[in-house]
């Protein structure tokens, strides 16, 4: 016990490093992002491990959480791209995304009437308070599936915003998209996620 304590005292002295909660949250955010990007838990773990390790090694350079996070994310992103390149999946991504805008048109036609109002059957339903219904493994499995069903670019931008909580400029710089392009993509990602959750979880729950 005392040994463990004194060992942790010897760790680098950056204040951030001692903020276990922040570092743990950061690791988890990155891990979720990585797993959904490379779709392979072991490879994702390794990439996050490496990125976090270099964060620990360079911790003294950062005095703001945001700066550290940006930096870890940049390292992680390069590692993920390497993984995807090795598996020749990265080049395919852009081809897959070509089809996405067509599907968006189809979804919007499906949800809305010609004059831009909700189709009667598609009007958003009240979702149960996430408190109990959402805290179940089954729900998270559906959420996973819905995220994976998004076009790669959509889920990447969505996760950068909602999981990593990166700000708009940061995402735009990283991904080389314009602000309005980002906002539109996030809208479409949310529209699809919402539809997927409503069809597969919330509605099913109400109907049974």
């Amino acid at each position, binding site marked *: 016990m005392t040994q463990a304590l004194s060992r942790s005292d010897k760790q680098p002295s950056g204040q951030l490093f001692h903020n276990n909660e922040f570092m743990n949250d950061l690791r988890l955010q990155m891990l979720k992002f990585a797993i959904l990007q490379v779709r392979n838990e072991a490879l994702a773990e390794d990439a996050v491990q490496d990125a976090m390790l270099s964060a620990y090694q360079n911790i003294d350079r950062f005095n703001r959480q945001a700066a550290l996070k940006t930096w870890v994310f940049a390292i992680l992103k390069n590692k993920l791209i390497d993984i995807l390149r090795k598996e020749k999946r990265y080049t395919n991504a852009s081809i897959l995304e070509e089809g996405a805008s067509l599907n968006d048109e189809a979804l919007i036609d499906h949800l809305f009437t010609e004059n831009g109002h909700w189709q009667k059957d598609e009007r958003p339903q009240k979702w149960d308070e996430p408190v109990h219904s959402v805290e179940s493994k089954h729900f998270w499995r559906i959420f996973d599936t819905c995220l994976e069903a998004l076009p790669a670019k959509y889920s990447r931008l969505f996760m950068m915003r909602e999981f990593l909580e990166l700000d708009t400029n940061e995402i735009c710089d990283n991904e080389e998209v314009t602000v309005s392009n980002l906002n539109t993509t996030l809208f479409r990602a*949310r529209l699809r996620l919402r539809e997927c959750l409503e069809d597969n979880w919330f509605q099913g729950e109400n109907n049974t």
Partner: protein
Amino acid sequence: MMKCTQATQLLSEKLDRPLSNKEKMNLGIHTAMCPACRQFGKQMLSLRDISQRYVKQSDREEKDGNA
């Protein structure tokens, strides 16, 4: 009046940028009269909330190795 297609986009963008006063006003008028878009707005907030839980929750279950 604003269409639901436009209102839903603004309800999403509201999470990403501050809306202009004009946008806020038009959106306010629309949602006051459109329960479906009101519901959609709540769902957008839920999605954010769910995402934050997702990131924290699932690893607590999967890997609590150092408890």
